[in-house]
């Protein structure tokens, strides 16, 4: 006997779990991998101080005015207010699995399953976006300022390679740390005000592979100002892909294989300096953590998501996350920028 079926055939089962995107968390905000400065709304003054003293021949006479200098410089840093916001129309979820978790009544279209399984992804997605913004990207204005610098090979001038990397950075509403290190208006620089940062750059660099990564880190290490070597929070911030290249290099086959990097679980270091892997593109930053700053109103703003129902009978909902944000660097002469 033939069975005759007319109509549309539909799947009768579904995977219980909704398959999720990965939202990376590189610890910049969670672990405070740079200095997170809170309680700033629109702008903040950053003070830097320096003392220069002179040795003089002993005298038992009264101390006269000498030539020691105590310098205090103040640089105002503006924060940019940004938001992540949109509306959600749950009606588009009708005729899907989410309909089952909607309360009875035609007015009720809020799906608790959708809220718990999908909408809650907004917070980690915002965190990931802010991580990227911290390490890569610049405003249109900042990109133009970096492009306008005069390139040269020696220390004290930007490399053409850095300008190429900055030009290729994604346009963002805020400036990443590399963009701020390259160009800023700190009053505490050798040449105060808007212009090239006071960073040290690594000369004669080349594209990094697993074969040359140890040599390139050696170049970076050799460029560091010896004064920073004993700083407890001295850190190398490296692109994410370096972790793989380092592990490949450490496990290379052959007589010439050398374990140039110390890898202990998630902790990686080079010559005793901790390496943190961040979504940097082309640049590496070697600096004491205390010299790299993020200014925010509250660090917890990053995960605060407000939601509500739209007004005037609309059956849509809104969500909004608001943050005040800026990156900054201090004691720039002690920051080494590979790729700078």
């Amino acid at each position, binding site marked *: 006997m033939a069975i005759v079926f007319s109509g549309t055939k539909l799947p009768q089962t579904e995977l219980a779990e909704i398959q999720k995107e990965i939202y990376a968390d590189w610890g910049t905000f969670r672990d405070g991998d740079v200095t997170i400065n809170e309680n700033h709304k629109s702008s903040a003054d950053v003070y830097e101080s320096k003392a220069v003293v002179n040795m003089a021949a002993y005298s038992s006479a009264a101390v006269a005015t000498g030539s020691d200098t105590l310098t205090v410089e103040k640089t105002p840093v503006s924060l940019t207010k940004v938001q992540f916001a949109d509306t959600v129309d749950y009606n588009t979820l009708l005729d899907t699995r989410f309909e089952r978790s909607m309360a009875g009544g035609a007015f009720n279209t809020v799906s608790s399953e959708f809220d718990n399984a999908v909408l809650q992804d907004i917070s980690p997605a915002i965190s990931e976006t802010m991580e990227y913004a911290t390490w890569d990207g610049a405003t249109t204005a900042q990109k133009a300022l970096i*492009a306008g610098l*005069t*390139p*040269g*090979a*020696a*220390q*004290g*001038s930007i*490399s*053409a*390679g850095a*300008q*190429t990397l900055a030009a290729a950075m994604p346009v963002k509403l805020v400036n990443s740390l590399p963009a701020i290190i390259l160009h800023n208006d700190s009053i505490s620089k050798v040449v105060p005000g808007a212009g090239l940062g006071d960073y040290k750059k690594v*000369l*004669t*660099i*080349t594209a990094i592979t697993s074969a040359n990564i140890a040599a390139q880190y050696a170049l970076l290490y050799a460029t560091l100002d010896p004064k920073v070597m004993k700083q407890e929070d001295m850190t190398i911030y490296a692109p994410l892909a370096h972790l793989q290249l380092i592990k490949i290099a450490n496990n290379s086959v052959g007589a010439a294989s050398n374990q140039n990097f110390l890898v202990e679980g998630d902790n990686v270091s080079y010559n005793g300096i901790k390496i943190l892997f961040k979504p940097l593109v082309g640049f590496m930053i070697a600096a004491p953590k205390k010299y790299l700053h993020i200014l925010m109103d509250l660090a917890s703003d990053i995960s605060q998501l407000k939601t509500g129902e739209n007004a005037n009978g609309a059956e849509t909902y809104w969500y909004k996350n608001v943050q005040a944000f800026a990156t900054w660097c201090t004691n720039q002469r002690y920051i080494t920028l590979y790729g700078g």
Partner: protein
Amino acid sequence: MNAQKVFLNPFDRGVTYEQFLKSLPKGVSISNHLKGKCSQEQINWLKTELKKFKNK
């Protein structure tokens, strides 16, 4: 008599790529011009840099 161009080391502080390129004698390659004055590593990097500079 042709005036001799002053040698400009691109790795000296304050020397820009523009100044260095202007100082290059006509018909002399960067490698030859810097031979003996800069390391091969420096010359290789400089050539990459100048390519990027010219493509700006």
